[in-house]
């Protein structure tokens, strides 16, 4: 029982981190209908900034810089690349983000080199015991921060003028533009928020029990892509649900790999993708999606 509880808590914590990343995909998709394949590189950039800065300026300022830097990078990509292609189809725009990802990832991965960069977080390897269940402090922090960030985002989405503009743009871009919504600002804002969330996620992907940031960290973002699709790529609730679902699935698959031969040998890594394929076969819009992502 304790083992199960531990698995669930750990699964939820990493699920919350996936949800942060998935939310980034959803925000960009809602406001621009683009699937942002450059998201992994934003995540890597945010994590890298924290890793190189924390020694000099301390962890919290470094985290702030990482979040701001990734947000700025996101907005920059939107401004320099996507805005020039505004008239292109969403498909073309999604494809161009793949090119952006290749360039950014190669450069950041080169800077990281073969190193494993610690992020200097304050939690270290400390753990908390709750009724026999051992949980790392970093996991609790991940869960807390992710929930807080998502709440703040949802509130902003609902009540700020930016959120209103974004929802309007998501409903109907042409009408929103006629109503005075500045689509450029909405989409740059969406990219910036996505970048910020990615940087936060990067932090929690690199803290205990992972020794630090390395060039493979961006693969985690690719695991959050199924999370976004499972939830429905236009649904913020879906991102949360999809992220948690994937985190828990992964944790259970790893936890019970000794009980079932099928789960052995890295099954957990592909579980998100299998889950996604199943969901797409049954419900192409995702669990909470409304917009026709796919058409029968």
């Amino acid at each position: 029982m304790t083992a199960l509880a531990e698995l669930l808590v750990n699964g939820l914590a990493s699920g919350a981190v996936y949800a942060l990343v998935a939310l980034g995909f959803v925000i960009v998709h809602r406001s621009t209908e683009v699937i942002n394949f450059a998201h992994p590189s934003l995540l890597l950039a945010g994590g890298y900034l924290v890793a190189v800065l924390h020694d000099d300026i301390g962890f919290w300022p470094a985290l702030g810089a990482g979040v701001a830097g990734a947000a700025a990078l996101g907005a920059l990509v939107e401004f320099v690349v996507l805005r020039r292609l505004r008239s292109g189809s969403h498909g073309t725009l999604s494809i161009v983000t793949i090119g952006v990802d290749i360039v950014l990832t190669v450069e950041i991965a080169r800077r990281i080199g073969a190193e494993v960069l610690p992020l200097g977080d304050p939690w270290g390897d400390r753990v908390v015991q709750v009724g026999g269940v051992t949980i790392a402090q970093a996991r609790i922090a991940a869960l807390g921060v992710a929930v807080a960030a998502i709440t703040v985002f949802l509130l902003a989405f609902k009540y700020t003028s930016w959120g209103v503009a974004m929802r309007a743009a998501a409903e109907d871009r042409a009408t929103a533009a006629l109503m005075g919504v500045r689509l450029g600002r909405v989409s740059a804002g969406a990219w910036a928020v996505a970048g910020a969330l990615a940087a936060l996620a990067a932090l929690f992907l690199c803290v205990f029990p992972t020794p630090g940031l390395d060039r493979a960290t961006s693969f985690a973002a690719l695991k959050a892509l199924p999370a976004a699709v499972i939830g429905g790529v236009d649904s913020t609730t879906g991102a949360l649900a999809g992220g948690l679902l994937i985190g828990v699935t992964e944790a259970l698959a790893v936890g019970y790999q000794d009980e079932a031969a099928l789960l052995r040998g890295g099954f957990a890594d592909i579980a998100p993708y299998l889950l996604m394929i199943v969901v797409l076969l049954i419900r192409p819009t995702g669990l909470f999606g409304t917009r026709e992502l796919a058409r029968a």
Partner: protein
Amino acid sequence: MRTVRIGIAAAVVACLAAGCSGKATGGGGESGGVKTGPGVTKDTITVSALTDLTGPYAALGKGVTQAQKLYFDQLNAAGGVCGRKVELLVRDHGYDVQKAVAAYSEIAPRSAALPQVIGSPITNALRSRLESDKLLTIPQAWAHTLLGSRYIQLTGTTYDIDMVNAVAFLVKEKGLKAGDRIGHIHLEGDYGQSALAGSRFAAEKSGLKLVEQQVKATDADMTAQAAAFRKAGVKAILVSVSPKQAASLAGVTAAMGLKVPFAASNSAFAQQLLATPVAPVLEREYYVMTAATPFSADVPGVKKLAGDYQKAFPGQPLDSSVFSGYTTAAIVGEALKKACAAKDLTREGIVTAHRSAKAFDIGLGGAPQDYSQWTRPASRAGYIVKPDKAALGGTRVHQEPAESDLAKSYNPPAG
């Protein structure tokens, strides 16, 4: 249709015209009384390295390559071989087999030997071509499945031997006894499989129960594996994964309150881990089985190497990759010298010269190596070292090279 017919006619004409092609049909010859083969001209001998400077083993590749450069620079400064300079041609494959194969096609025709090939999938992919090209090759990989080729030389101990010695060490020094459980976390692929072959053998011989956990190269979080070991109640853990994964495992087990000794393959530790939060755990109970002499060891040759390397590459980490690079380059250097003495610098001549070494020792510590057999590891004795922040190179000797009785009775099946 007509176009097709004309095309075929044109092709035939072109093929005939090509008869005047000057495409070379391969090297070979003799100069100054020395028989020469591909890669050897009258003033240079070219040897090549297929390394990883941009992929997952970039740290290893960089250290090995720089150390090999150092060796050949020293060799050339001392007059080279047979009045020729030895030139090291380096190609980076980023651990991508296709790139490695392409690079091999480029460099093989102008190389006399390959003192460095990183990656056992790459060595396996090139194996038949290495054999038909007769190139003396030294892979930076120690899976026993690479044994069995006259042209491929593994240095020191193989992963399976290391794990046999590790189990012997745990039984002797950490009090493991028959009936105890012992964990082994290993990567999929050659490295992990080879290590597993050793641990399975040794566990059975010692009456231990082996708890196996296989992980993928991309796995980063070892929580589940640690939990499985805790559940099984293991008394010690054998580690054959990447350094980053090893760090995660050490951190998690410590956090879980599972205090057991670790005995690791030489590829499961990197000096950089001592900068991460798990350093104290590693310094406490982590033992690395390696054939490479640690730089903190009291061996004059190694001390000189450390000094030379730091002078040539200031600020670069001194770790086992440097040792390994230097010694592998030296193996090729010695083979070239012997081949020169035998007046045969053909590829076959170089291999023959190399295979005549029965107790290779260039004063860099460790046990003498026997290169005359290619179906058995060159040595069965390795150091046991412990991570230590204060030590030069990040490790210090815990036990001098010794061949355990268990290892003596073990015969790795050649691949």
